[in-house]
């Protein structure tokens, strides 16, 4: 319950934070801490240095730069969840943010922190992958931008190197799209067994475009492209969506654990995808 001792730094700028990361080999970034704190309390990790991003004001906030919404990495989930511009242009993010953890966790946990942690069962990674968000990374040589699909590399691993920080996330606008986040768990507080993030653009009664992301169906969040393609041009009806959703688990290798084996997860993926897409299309 008591973490091992560490040196603590709370930089007030990104440059200062990056300098600290360069300076210290065994440093962990604290970005809200709702995943890191349990790890420290249980002493599953005992870093020598903690660099807390909590006092870098520049990393907080949501802005609309015209083409995209730009979410500061240290914006708490509770702020994301309640933000009107996100609700208007990227409803899927509002819905998934509201499903994270519990209210207390959403007050402290941050958008970028959750993504950088890269838990395969987390809520947000599948959403940013589905929405083709861009991850803006700052390192010693300045900024680089990576597509969400290329950001996640494995369980708890991303393209971020030790001396880099995820500073903001650019989300293209999905104005007018329907969205639904379908999270399936045994109890409210549990990580999802499988979750499906879906956004669709309707043209009349026809699905013109679709985005579907899957959580906990592999070591990284998965974009269900086969489903997306199958949905385009289809009517938003139960039968049509069912047929498309049957392909949700194509190419996935989901985990087996106490809550279900791979076969069950594949089955869930198609059921939940159907439900998510239908709800997103307003036909749920």
């Amino acid at each position, binding site marked *: 319950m*008591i973490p*091992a001792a560490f040196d603590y730094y709370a930089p007030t700028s990104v440059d200062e934070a990056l300098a600290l990361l360069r300076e210290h080999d065994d440093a962990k970034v604290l970005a809200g801490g709702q995943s890191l704190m349990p790890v420290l309390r249980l002493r599953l990790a005992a870093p020598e240095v903690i660099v807390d991003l909590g006092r870098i004001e520049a990393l907080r906030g949501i802005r609309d730069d015209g083409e995209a919404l730009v979410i500061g990495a240290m914006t708490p989930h509770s702020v994301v969840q309640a933000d009107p511009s996100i609700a208007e242009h990227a409803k899927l993010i509002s819905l998934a943010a509201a499903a994270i953890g519990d209210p207390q966790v959403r007050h402290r946990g941050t958008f970028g922190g959750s993504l950088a942690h890269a838990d395969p069962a987390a809520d947000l990674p599948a959403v940013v992958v589905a929405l083709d968000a861009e991850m803006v990374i700052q390192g010693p040589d300045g900024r680089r931008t990576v597509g969400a699909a290329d950001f996640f590399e494995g369980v708890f691993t991303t393209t971020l190197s030790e001396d880099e920080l995820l500073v903001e996330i650019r989300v293209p606008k999905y104005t007018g799209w329907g969205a639904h986040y379908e999270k*399936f768990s*045994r109890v*409210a507080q549990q990580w999802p067994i499988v979750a499906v993030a879906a956004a669709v653009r309707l043209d009349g009664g026809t699905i013109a475009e679709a985005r579907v992301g899957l959580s906990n169906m592999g070591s990284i969040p998965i974009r269900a492209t086969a489903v997306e393609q199958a949905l385009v041009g289809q009517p938003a009806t139960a039968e049509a969506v069912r047929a498309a959703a049957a392909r949700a688990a194509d190419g996935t290798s989901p985990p087996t654990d106490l*809550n279900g084996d791979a076969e*069950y997860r594949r089955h869930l993926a198609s059921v939940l995808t159907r439900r998510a897409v239908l709800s997103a299309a307003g036909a749920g």
Partner: protein
Amino acid sequence: MTTTQERPAAEVGNPRRRKEDARLITGRTRWTDNVVLPGMLHLAMVRSPFAHARITGIDTEAARSSSGVVAVLTGADLAEEQGGLPFAWTATPEQKAPAHPSIAVDTVNFAAEIVAVVVARSAAEANDAADLVDVDYEELPAALDLKAAAADEVLAHPDLGTNVSARFNFDSAEAGTGGDVDAAIAAARDGGIVIEREYRQQRLIPAFMEPRSIVADPTGEQLTVWSSTQVPHFVKIFIALVLGIPEHKIRVIAPDVGGGFGGKLQFTPEEVLTVIAARRTGKPCKYSETRSESLQAAHHGRDQWQKLTLAADRDGTVRGLKVELLANMGAYLGLVSAGIPILGAFMYNGIYKFPAYRLTCTNVFTNKTWTDAYRGAGRPEATFAVERLMDELAAEVGVDPLEIRERNWIKHEEFPFTTVSGMHYDSGNYEAATAKAKGLFGYDDLRAEQQRRRESGDPVQLGIGISTYTEMCGLAPSRWLGSMGYVGGGWEHASIRMLPTGKVEVITGTSPHGQGHETAWSQIVADRLGVPFEDVEVLHGDTQVSARGLDTYGSRSLAIGGMAVLAAADKVIEKAKPIAAQLLEANADDLEYTGGRFGVRGTEAGMSLAELAFAVFQGHKLDGGAERSLDADATLEPDDFSFPHGTHLCAAEVDTETGAVTIRSYVSVDDVGNVINPVIVEGQVHGGVAQGIGQALFEEAVHDESGTLVTGSFDAYLVAAAPDLPSFVTARTETPATTNQLGVKGVGEAGTIASTPAVVNAVVDAVRHLGVSDVEMPCTPYRVWKALQEGAKS
């Protein structure tokens, strides 16, 4: 038939809000972990990661030289001093049990067993040093699977030569309480119905919200121990017996205790080691476990396999029940581990008139955390078995499961009734509780909806689950406990102190940890003595104040402890009467005591209890021979158990696409006899039902193949949160117990005992037409889905 007294007007039955709340809602609480004493040292435990291993070496040097460390103790250091942890239940005279050290000396027998103790100035330093203790283990084969262990495939304790601790039998033919079950089964095989099932009672973790904590203070002449325990009186005796500290030099305090549910009915290794550390260092020592430690090392519950054979006529009249039980003790015998299945053994016939019954129970050791009391303790397992079987029988006969129950249950006019297991049911009215429950539930409408959904092939199917349960409460007559191999008694003690200002101190031997005894006992005393509720203070949980007592578990507190309080109050009045007669210059026979006052019949003259208390305090006017005290003690020995009962109905929706189960409505009608405080009773039912639902749907202690608990945190051991549970509709019928003067029965465990089978019956009922006749607990979506896949194949 009943000797129940008239219901007093004022307090008993009143939905008083609790006295306890004032401190609990403002944070002015007295948890053990709050205790801070000058010079206090802190303990951290080093625990085994292996389920079964030989300790080949412990290097404590780095830990000893770590900052702030005062001592590092290992099993080798304490081999003699630590004594052995006791068990208080001997299931059979031949029972085998391994020595149970508080700290492992040469082998560890379950994962999380303590192998070293660090004592340091601060908790942080103790934790830091604990990380530096280097233990070498040689892993041994571990007995983990209960059935394999029962067959002695791998021995948990090779020196015992077997994993079988005891085999306990009850046979109604031998006991003279019924017929021969084998004959009944043979007869049923020839033209009747024989239902054979195997049910698993998964391992559960009590998961009280306050982790256990101990402070031992050796300062002064006496050892003072604060412990987050249900049983301070037990702890005092066992510290004396195990550590050789004279009993009169020990004071144990259970201050505010944050839940127990049987999980704190124990004398623990951590208590022993904290006392030893205090004795060795001469300083107050504190140990507070983490949640992870608590889930792994505090005793677990349930963990049984039940093999059941029910014989019935074609019309569903039950002819006999045979129960073959395997009970997982885990690595050691705790205080009442061996007795848990025995507490269930007499309840497998439930509310029914079975003519023949036999139970055989094998208590088996494995290399897992030991099991012991958890809410219901043996009775939920028994009730689950019989209530699931009644549903299976109904399906076989093709009638409504309520009808099959009614065909077999004891009619209300048949009480008192001696069951096939020899228990004397004093009272009950199963018809009334069931009728009320059906009405509140809307039973017929739900059955009609169920039919519609079946016919339309709705992906969400509806199931109705029934549990018409009874249980034995009020542990227990001492003679019965003794006959069953329990070392302790079942009495309870209370004292009443009349203070000079007329205020009343009630001292109870019960040790509440959420049950509201301070409120309920005040109500009993306020009525009996005719004093204001506010003028009564209930003291408990400190052996220096409450010198005698047997604490709180087994739904015994009200039926026994509350009755002891009542008896003490009666003694106060008895004692006061001659003094009042003397002071009023009246004949004692002419006095009557009402409303807190002795009045002389036919006159205005009288004296209040408060006035008497002050007169006794002064002592001026009393006769020379009169004792200058109105205080009274009472020790109450119960005549028998009490038997609450009720009918619980659960409507559950099963999403056949995902396997998800949602409880749509839940109705309980409980008959707990007379009620002291309906608000508290309702709260007990809510919490009990929630825990029973937890067993049905969410909770399971799971170990991996190496014996490590994989559900060792609240991330994985799923305690339901608010969104996971429905609102319950609760109601009562009141059939007073005839075995105690208050007519009360006990309510602490009823909800837990009743609800688990109600929920599982609902799940199975929802999908029985899809080929499913059982889902193993907890009924996770995955398990339900798999059962549906299997059902579709068959």
